[in-house]
């Protein structure tokens, strides 16, 4: 029943774009039809997800399927339910958002196409988390990935969009090939295409192969540094609700894959956990460091996805370390932290993208340094962005803090339990996560300060108007979810415990609430909000507006400052970019003084995508050159071609005779 409901959601969302195309490929009517079908489908999906999260059991549906690769088998448990829930929640939020952000009358050329692929993305992801058969998994995986490619290249008349779309396409295909190989190895190990696997030997060479291939393949999708190369460009250049869906949910499919992968094995070697933990740490720190250097609002948010994926993978690594060393508390804290952070990141990242999209819609630019003072023009968008920013920095009282706390406590516990060097490594994750938090604060202070505060730095913001309700409502919904998880984390604990048990397949109660003082945190968070409100009221009593004088900002003695003299995003980030200079490789163009009297000059700094620009592109260019060079073997001469036949014949006769 439950599973049928979820499948109905898959079908409804999958066909919604096509139905909308039939109703009106380029018209508003199509928009509404699409939105209605998506809402309906997502409602089904959310009900199914909720029911699977609140029940212990696993429901399985198996139907014969006439292809090589066995039966059509889907499964729904709490773990899958958690992912289903965020797929449909953010999916439907993006649909409503698109009503205002990408309306048919503004984008008649692309809207129909985009609806189709948006629906397919949601549908593919939903089927993916339910797939219990590797062929079905790959089907939905690739439907999701290719639909995302088309959604990213919606504006394909722009060269930058085509370029980043192609980078994404190549990356996702590379990942898919790795996953295909992983499933083939898995099949060699288990003898079937079913994914209902437990107790696989992790120390065998096949097991190791599965892990490495899966790590690379799923890591590519998740955007784990250094496999994240496709992510910034794709997120930046996609329509914003697509970016939100990709950043919020799609990359989590890589995480989902890694989590499922972990559940196949019985005894996990310590190095698996260490590798994940290490990659997660690198990803978290460098992700946020790269984010600080960005000037493009959406690109910056994209790098924060790398960071948050890093935190999630740290949690997952911790859980694997727990499995390897037999510490149930590490498993519980690590996996629950990873899962909850997956949710949280989906919520606040979608919220941030939505509000960024609202800014872009109002100002027509993504360039941070061209903006400023939008808080007065876009009050609701600003509040939404601020809530998202507080949440993504992991600050109390919002949800980001809760999930990071899980990971913190997990790492600290690993340090306090007698784990030897493993414990030390895990403990060193604490300062890593702390610096990630501080860097995120710096980054979001930069973004929020430059975009929403102060004065506008260019003419872009002058005509800015607040977005319509269809864009604000999804933001409100997501912000409310962020606040709810922050204020009432105990509500999600049972879900997390069930999902963790699905993963570990051990029925014993893990008792997350005994490991964490979530009740205390919960009321402290509420108290914090109340206290702030109370003090603010007191302050307004102590300093009523009647006694408030409005004056210009203190100019420190420099007369008539202009808005262009405000601190910019680049200047704000300069110190931190310099600190990480060896990794970020910033390209700085400083003006040179050529004459005694300085003329107008410009200073520019730019942080490239280091892995892509400095490593991968040169390799591909080199391969291209080699391929061009190798063309000499086919110069067009028929004589030579006949010689090839003769030579092949002679060589083969010589070798195999």
């Amino acid at each position: 029943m439950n599973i049928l409901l979820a499948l109905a959601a898959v079908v409804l969302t999958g066909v919604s774009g096509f139905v909308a195309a039939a109703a009106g490929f380029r018209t508003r009517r199509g928009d509404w039809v699409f939105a209605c079908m998506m809402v309906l489908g997502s409602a089904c999906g959310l009900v199914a997800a909720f029911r699977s999260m609140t029940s212990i059991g696993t429901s399985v549906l198996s139907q014969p399927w006439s292809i090589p690769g066995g039966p059509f088998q889907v499964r729904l448990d709490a773990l899958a339910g958690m992912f289903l829930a965020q797929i449909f929640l953010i999916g439907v939020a993006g649909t409503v958002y698109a009503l205002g952000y990408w309306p048919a009358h503004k984008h008649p050329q692309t809207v129909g196409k985009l609806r189709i692929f948006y629906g397919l993305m949601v549908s593919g992801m939903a089927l993916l988390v339910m797939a219990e058969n590797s062929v079905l998994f790959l089907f939905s995986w690739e439907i999701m990935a290719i639909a995302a490619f088309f959604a990213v290249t919606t504006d394909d008349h722009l060269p930058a969009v085509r370029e980043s779309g192609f980078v994404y396409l190549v990356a996702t295909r590379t990942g898919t090939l790795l996953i295909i190989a992983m499933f083939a190895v898995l099949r060699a190990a288990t003898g079937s295409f079913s994914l209902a696997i437990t107790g696989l030997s992790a120390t065998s060479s096949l097991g190791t192969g599965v892990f490495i291939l899966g790590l690379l393949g799923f890591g590519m999708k998740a955007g784990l540094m250094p496999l994240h190369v496709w992510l910034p460009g794709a997120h930046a250049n996609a329509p914003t609700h697509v970016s939100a869906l990709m950043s919020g949910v799609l990359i989590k499919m890589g995480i989902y894959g890694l989590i499922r992968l972990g559940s196949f094995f019985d005894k996990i070697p310590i190095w698996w956990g260490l590798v994940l933990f290490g990659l997660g740490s690198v990803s978290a720190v460098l992700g946020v460091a790269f984010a600080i250097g960005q000037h493009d609002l959406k690109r910056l948010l994209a790098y924060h996805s790398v960071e948050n994926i890093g935190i999630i993978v740290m949690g997952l690594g911790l859980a694997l370390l727990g499995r390897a060393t037999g510490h149930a508390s590490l498993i519980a804290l690590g996996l629950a932290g990873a899962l909850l952070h997956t949710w949280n990141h989906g919520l606040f990242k979608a919220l941030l993208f939505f509000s960024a999209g609202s800014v872009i819609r109002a100002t027509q630019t993504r360039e941070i340094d061209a903006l400023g003072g939008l808080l007065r023009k876009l009050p609701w968008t600003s509040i939404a962005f601020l809530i998202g920013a507080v949440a993504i920095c992991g600050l109390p009282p919002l949800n980001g803090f809760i999930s990071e706390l899980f990971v913190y406590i997990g790492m600290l516990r690993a340090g306090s339990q007698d784990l030897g060097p493993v414990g030390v490594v895990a403990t060193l994750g604490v300062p890593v996560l702390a610096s990630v938090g501080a860097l995120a604060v710096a980054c979001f202070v930069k973004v929020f300060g430059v975009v929403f505060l102060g004065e506008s730095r260019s003419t872009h913001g002058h005509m800015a108007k607040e977005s319509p309700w269809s864009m604000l409502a999804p933001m409100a919904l997501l912000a409310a979810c962020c606040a709810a998880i922050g204020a009432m984390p105990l509500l999600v604990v049972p879900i997390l415990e069930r999902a963790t048990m699905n993963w570990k397949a051990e029925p014993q109660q893990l008792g997350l609430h005994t490991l964490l003082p979530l009740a205390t945190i919960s009321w402290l968070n509420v108290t914090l909000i109340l206290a702030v409100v109370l003090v603010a009221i007191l302050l307004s009593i102590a300093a009523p507006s009647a006694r408030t004088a409005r004056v210009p900002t203190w100019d420190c003695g420099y007369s008539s400052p202009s808005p262009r003299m405000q601190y910019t995003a680049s200047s704000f980030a300069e110190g931190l970019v310099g600190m990480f200079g060896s990794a970020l490789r910033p390209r700085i163009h400083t003006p040179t003084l050529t004459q005694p009297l300085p003329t107008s000059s410009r200073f520019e700094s730019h942080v490239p995508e280091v892995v892509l620009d400095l490593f991968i592109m040169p390799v591909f260019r080199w391969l291209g050159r080699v391929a061009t060079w190798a063309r000499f073997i086919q110069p067009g001469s028929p004589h030579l071609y006949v010689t090839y036949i003769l030579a092949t014949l002679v060589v083969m006769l010589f070798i195999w005779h």
Partner: protein
Amino acid sequence: MAAIVDPLLIVVLLLNFFTLGASRMRSIINGSAAQGVVLGAVALLAHGEFGLQAVLIAVVTVILKGIGIPWMLMRAMRDVGIRREVEPLIGLIPSLLVGALGTGLAILFAHALPLAKQPIGSLFVPTSLSTVFTGFILLTSRRKAISQVVGYLILENGVFIMGLTLVSAMPFLVEMGVLLDLLVGIFVMGIIVNHIQREFSSLDTTRLSQLKG
């Protein structure tokens, strides 16, 4: 039987060398024509008995390989009015040397293969292989399209010789089909050669290298 067939096969081999060494188009075509006539005789003898089929095949072979196709080629050459020289990519002497080397290798290769206990000449396999090889040399080292066609013809001759060892396996109909295919093939090639001359004002196939990469 072998007593008569073997000398004929030797003649075939010698004709291979003749075509390799010939410097004029006409000689090459004549060489292939002569080879066709000899093959007709071999075909007749190889069948063992002079039945209707054997005679028919021999006659058709002679008509096609010895007369028809060479005549077509001669006409094509006259039509396009090309110069008479062969214009090899590698010189005639090197061609001969390579041909000799190839024949030697073919004999060695044939020796490496066990021969069937058949009342048929032991020279069939080496002659066949060496003729195929000669065809290859002509195909790969002669500029003119027509000489390449001759090369193909000689290559086919080599295959034909091999086929003669298996007369019972190749029924009459199939044999005829093979020959018909050869005829049509050469005919189509002739047409193309004609077009090449018209389009490129030359039969030099090294110029046919617009399409590459």
